Each structure stands twice: as structure tokens, then as C-alpha cells.
């Protein structure tokens, strides 16, 4: 019986080195160890091209190669009969292999040695199981499919974006025992992502930003491919230092660096999945664990399905929020208490729309512009009820077109306020509607400097 390549995916985790045999033009065989074989699809694998070595010289003359991979659980060996097709030096496959190679290199103390020059793509002509004794021990597994079903079932019941995100991250923990997770949305400038929800961290990090191309989340956003890393990797960690470096050199608006990114200091495993809507990237779902080798191919499969569903749900709820429901009489009737206590000074810096509350940094960018508009409007007119739609139509906010998720911005702002100032609150009052609750007197000031 010929096993399918897909059924061998455990062999491609890099846990047990593989071996490759090639043949030179003068008929001399060559055999070498491989750090990992990358599963591409049912008919293709890719090998890392790190040095111009004999293997590479040989396959450029004679495209046939034979690889032996080992299942890291059963110890069964498989022979793959391959034919070299092409080398990719950029794009999703290359980025994916680069991240995984960095992980293996870091794990094996080879960080300075392994460097990906290209991804060599091979057609798989045949797969053969080598006779041998299978290790009877199997690894315990969470039932991913039933967990996925439960997660999706819970999402269906969510009527607004904030609830959807919370239920989704809680579902990851309840059904898959994934305890550290976050969702980042792509800024319409296409250069950065901002954290809109997280779970499992001391500080939520809502409002923190990462640059596209930087760290695992940024690389996933740039290459639009899921990346899964099973070892601690320096290159794909987020440190304040690298984020500041990027912030300093950032073109256009500076990256948000005042709010720390919420990730684990020492992640043993990381998995990031892009949220795609057709060919449009909405954001990235990121999960991590202090344990090494925590996430399998099956976890990746499940998260990719969840992310597809999530992208559709986010888009649906965001579009709905652009059209406010009729205001509920009951909610409007709620008396807003008069502000009282010591006045709070709020300052706005138009250069980057940053907002400070009693000299403490609150937020900047689009969310900063929104809160400033709401506070000013309330000071001038006494109005507390607002709609998403009027924000969208307000030219002074310079909101991008509908591709920007305004609802996600409001959630970010709502959460940042809840964490930083108890006397300012944004409260949802219905689809596309919200209320600004202010419980202390405010003194608004616009600064001309930066």
C-alpha cells in the first residue's frame, strides 16, 4: 500500500533528521543529512537550500533524489522518490521555511550556521513505507475536530465584534487548551497590525502594534501563510528594542511602541494564521505556549479553518455595524450621571493624534482621533450618543474607506479606556451605536507642539 504524503506529515516536523541521496553526472552517489523536509501538498515537498553543496550540484544535473524520512512517534521510515522542479527565493513557502529553519537552528545551537538561500521544490514521484517495527506508543491528543465544532458553534451566537473576539479566544482555551492567544488587525496602511484582543497575559496589550514583516505575526501578515514554530526562536521574538528600532525608521506614522506587545517572554511554540477574506488580509490570529512542540500540523489545520470562519464573521459584523439599528428607547432613557470629582486634564497632539490623560499616555493614531472627536463633541453639545456611521463620514478623522475596520478601532479604544481611565467609558448601545460615559469633569486642551 502506498501511503499518502499527507498521512506522513509528522515526519516533516524536523524532529528526526532526514537523509537525501543524489547522484553526480559521473555516477557517484552522495548521501547527506537534512534538517527538515517541508510538506507542501500531497504531491510536493520542499528542501532547504542553505549552502551550495554536492547535493545541490547533483540535482541541477540529475533531478532525481531519494529521501528517507522518519516518523518521530512510530519510528517507521519512509522512502520518498523525488524529482527537483525549481527553487523559490521569496514568497510564502520561502518565509515559512525560513521561520521553521530558524527554529530548528536555534533549537540545535546552529543559529549562526543555518541560513536559508532558497526553497527547493520537488515533485514526489513515489512514497514507500520501509518495513520495520512501529513504536506502539502513541501521543495523547486533544480532539481537535470536536473542539473546532464547539468553537464555531459559539461564534455563530455572537452579535457584535467585541463579543465575537472574546468568545473566540475563550473557546481556544476551553476547547483546545490554548491559553495564550491574541488577534491583531491589519492597519489600512498595510504596514502594521494592531492588537484588538488577547487572552492569557498579565497586560492585555490592546492597542500595541507590530510591523508587517517583523516577528512571526508580521511575517505571516507579509507572506499571508500560516507559520508554526516548535522551539524558542530569538529571531521571531518581539523585544521592545527591535520594535523601537523599527518605529524610529518607520515611514509615515510612527509605530505604537508605548503600549507593550503582550506576548510571552519565552515562547516554546508559536503558531500564527492569517485571516483572509478572498485575497484581502484582515489580520492575524496568534497563539503561543511556553512548551516546545506544542502545536502540530493538526492544530494548524484547525486554526486555519477557525481563521477562515472568523474572517467571514468579522467582515459580516463590521458591515452590519456601519448601518446603525434604531436607537433603543430603553437605553436612551438611562440617566447619565453628572460628572463629579477632581477635573481631569486631557491633551491632544494633532501631529500623531496622541492623547494624554493627566500627562499619562492613553492612545494615538485613528483611535486617538476618535476619542478626541467624541470628547470635543460632548463638551460642545452635551451629546453622549454616537453612531459608527457618523465617525465614518467625519472627514476630520481622515478615516480610510470601508476596508478599515472601524468597529475594531472602537473595541481597541473601549478596552484601552477600561484599562487606563475608569471615568471614561464607551458603552455599546446597539448595532453601530455607542455611548460615551464621562463621570469626572474634563479640561480639554489641544497642543500645537509634538
Amino acid at each position, binding site marked *: 500500500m502506498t501511503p499518502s504524503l499527507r498521512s506522513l506529515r509528522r515526519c516533516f516536523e524536523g524532529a528526526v*533528521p532526514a*537523509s*537525501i*541521496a*543524489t*547522484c553526480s553526472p559521473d*555516477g*557517484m*552517489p*552522495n*548521501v*547527506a*543529512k537534512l*534538517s527538515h523536509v517541508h510538506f507542501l501538498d500531497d504531491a510536493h515537498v520542499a528542501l532547504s537550500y542553505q*549552502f551550495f*553543496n*554536492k547535493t545541490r550540484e547533483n540535482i541541477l544535473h*540529475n533531478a*532525481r*533524489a*531519494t*529521501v*528517507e524520512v*522518519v516518523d*518521530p*512517534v*512510530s*519510528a517507521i*521510515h519512509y*522512502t520518498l*522518490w523525488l524529482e527537483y522542479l525549481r527553487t523559490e527565493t521569496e514568497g510564502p513557502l520561502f518565509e515559512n521555511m525560513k521561520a521553521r529553519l530558524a527554529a530548528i537552528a536555534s533549537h*540545535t545551537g*546552529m543559529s549562526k*550556521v*543555518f541560513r536559508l538561500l532558497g526553497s527547493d521544490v520537488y515533485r514526489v514521484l513515489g512514497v514507500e513505507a*520501509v*518495513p*520495520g*517495527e*512501529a*513504536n*506502539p*506508543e502513541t501521543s495523547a491528543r486533544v480532539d481537535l475536530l470536536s473542539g473546532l465544532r464547539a468553537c464555531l458553534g459559539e461564534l455563530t451566537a455572537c452579535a457584535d465584534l467585541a463579543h465575537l473576539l472574546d468568545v473566540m479566544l475563550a473557546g481556544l482555551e476551553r476547547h483546545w487548551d490554548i491559553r495564550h492567544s491574541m488577534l491583531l488587525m491589519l492597519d489600512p496602511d498595510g504596514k502594521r497590525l494592531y492588537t484588538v484582543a488577547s487572552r492569557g497575559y498579565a497586560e492585555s496589550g490592546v492597542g500595541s502594534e507590530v510591523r508587517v514583516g517583523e516577528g512571526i505575526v508580521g511575517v505571516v501578515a507579509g507572506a499571508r501563510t500560516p507559520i508554526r514554530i516548535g522551539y524558542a526562536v530569538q529571531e521571531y521574538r518581539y523585544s521592545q528594542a527591535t520594535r523601537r528600532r523599527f518605529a524610529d525608521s518607520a515611514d509615515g506614522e510612527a509605530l505604537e511602541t508605548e503600549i507593550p506587545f503582550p506576548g510571552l517572554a519565552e515562547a516554546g511554540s508559536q503558531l500564527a494564521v492569517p485571516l483572509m477574506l478572498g485575497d484581502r488580509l484582515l489580520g492575524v490570529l496568534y497563539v503561543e505556549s511556553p512548551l516546545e512542540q506544542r502545536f502540530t500540523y493538526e492544530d494548524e489545520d484547525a486554526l486555519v479553518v477557525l481563521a477562515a470562519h472568523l474572517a467571514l464573521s468579522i467582515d459580516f459584523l463590521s458591515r452590519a455595524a456601519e448601518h446603525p439599528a434604531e436607537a433603543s428607547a430603553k437605553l436612551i432613557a438611562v440617566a447619565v450621571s453628572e460628572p463629579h470629582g477632581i477635573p481631569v486634564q486631557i491633551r491632544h497632539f494633532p501631529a500623531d493624534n496622541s492623547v494624554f490623560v493627566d500627562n499619562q499616555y492613553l492612545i494615538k493614531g485613528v483611535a486617538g482621533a476618535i476619542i478626541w472627536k467624541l470628547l470635543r463633541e460632548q463638551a460642545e453639545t452635551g451629546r453622549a450618543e454616537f453612531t459608527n456611521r457618523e465617525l465614518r463620514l467625519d472627514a476630520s478623522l481622515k478615516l480610510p474607506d470601508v476596508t478599515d475596520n472601524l468597529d475594531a478601532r472602537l473595541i481597541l479604544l473601549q478596552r484601552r479606556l477600561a484599562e487606563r481611565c475608569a471615568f471614561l467609558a464607551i458603552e455599546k448601545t446597539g448595532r453601530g451605536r455607542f455611548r460615551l460615559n464621562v463621570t469626572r469633569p474634563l479640561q480639554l486642551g489641544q497642543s500645537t507642539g509634538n
Partner: protein
Amino acid sequence: MPQMKSDPLLDAKQAAFLGGPVAINVASHDAAQIPSIARAYGCRISADRREVVVFLSKRCAQAILRDLAAGAPVAAVFSRPKTHETLQIKGARGRIQPLQAGDRAIMRACGAAFSAEIMLLGYSASFSDALMAPANDDAVGVAFMPDAVFEQTPGPKAGMRLEPKP
């Protein structure tokens, strides 16, 4: 170039390395230059270090044994998991021979040493046992004279052909 009655290609240190806790993979090719590959379970180096014999399980190595029987050349890579230290040896011809007295003991000892090494690296005992189980299979030796030795430890010297030291 075949070595005349000069120094053997393998030095004593390299010979000791080949007999240590290493993963051994052997390759050859058929008449259409399609490569064949199999894991070997231990090796024996002759006292004068001019002959290497690697042990292959008959049921696990059918393709390569067929190619070697047809007279194709042989390559073998030896890699120590703990240090990534790796050597490749090539020979113009591999001679298939029955196990000799003492060979089975070498196979089992090599298997046990390799198992012990990878268990220290975190692999389970049951995985290591299953990995090395073919050391008990019906087996043959593939004997060859090393024509060339290559450094293959990952790093700047990978691929370098090693000459005998005077």
C-alpha cells in the same frame, strides 16, 4: 585516486567516530541513475582502516542491495546526533557479504549506543527501541574501500574532501 600502500584514508580518530553512536545512511543508484537509500545498523572498520563494512537489514534495504549487487558505487554518511559531527565516505564498489562471526554483536552494540545517545537528547525508550529494532533483522554486510572522505558537519567546512594526514 585509490591509495597505494601509503597511509589509509581514514585516520584512527575518524575510524573510532564511525564506530560510535552515529546514525548511518547508505546510498547507491540503479542503472538509470535513480538514487537508492537505506539506514545501516552499525559498521566494522578493518584493523588497517582500509575497509569499511556497514550492516544493512535485508528487508529494509531491498532497493540499495539490488543496486549494489549490480556493481554500483556506494556512499555512506555517519552523523552523531549530539554534536552534528558528520562524515561521508564513498567507495567505487560495495561488496555484499554475509555477516561474519561477531558482526551481529557489533550491530546490537551500535544500536544500543545510538539508542542511549538519542534518549539523552529526549527521545523515548520505546521510540529508540523501534528505531533500532532492525539491528536484529536478517542482515548482510556491505564492504567497501574508502576512495574519498568528506567533512559534512554543518558549517563552513561542510563538503570539504579530507586527505590522509601524513
